[in-house]
């Protein structure tokens, strides 16, 4: 099963950490978490994927859905620290350009 750690930093950036496998069941919950953040006015979001052991196309869909609604609200969604398994899926789907992985959570919004 998966857990989501969610925190809002002092600079207003929301950090979501999916801990476990981001598959079909988990994707629905990630969608809710991301939608909730944007709805509450947090439109700059970092998804820390250092503890995401698996990602499938529905998890990807939830990330892209979050990216779109964050951008619509004037912000952005960035992914940081993907595991090898997650990076592999980014590459196979050619989404490593759209979801360009950042090296750290702290600096994910630096440029």
């Amino acid at each position, binding site marked *: *099963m998966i857990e989501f750690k969610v925190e809002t930093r002092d600079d207003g950036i929301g950090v979501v950490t999916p801990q476990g*496998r981001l*598959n*079909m*069941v988990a994707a629905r919950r990630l969608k809710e978490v991301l939608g909730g953040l944007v709805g509450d006015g947090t439109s700059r979001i970092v998804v820390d994927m250092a503890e995401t052991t*698996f990602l*499938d*196309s*529905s998890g*990807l*869909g*939830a990330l*892209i*859905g979050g*990216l*779109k609604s964050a951008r619509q609200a004037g912000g952005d969604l960035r992914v940081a620290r993907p595991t*090898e*398994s997650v990076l*592999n*899926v980014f590459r*196979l*789907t*050619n*989404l490593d*350009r*759209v979801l360009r992985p950042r090296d750290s959570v702290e600096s994910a919004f630096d440029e």
Partner: protein
Amino acid sequence: MSDQDPREPDAGPAADIASMEGRLELSAPADPETMELVHALLESLWVAHPDVLDVDRFRFETAVIEILANIVEHAYQLEPVDGERSPRRFEIGVAANADCLVATLGDNGLPMALDLSDVAMPEDDLAESGRGLALAVAALDDLHYERVGGRNQWTLLCRRAASA
């Protein structure tokens, strides 16, 4: 991508898995909740085959879960949905030998309408769905679909990378 003609029955991997030693076979309801159990099935396969490289584990697990997710999501979509759980089931077999990783998935749902050779990533980078089959195809060396006796039969093949 399949290099076998999908209209022609063949004695490829589908025929092989039943004789592969150490194979793991599961039959369960086609529910999203069963997905965790299939992850556990693969973990058990890796425990039995510690020499399988991460790169091969990743692509095999990706493909297996995508095909299963499609079964759960699409193969029953036209059936009436009622409050009770209806007996929607799937079967999965996974096995490894020195050369490859093989999975077979079967279900009693509707036939698939797609031609696998047309499958591609969506044009729109920001599409929120439509990547599942393309991802499975990209992860595998061979993906084979057949409709046999009112059942959908998928066969997945990863040729193992030569270890360093």
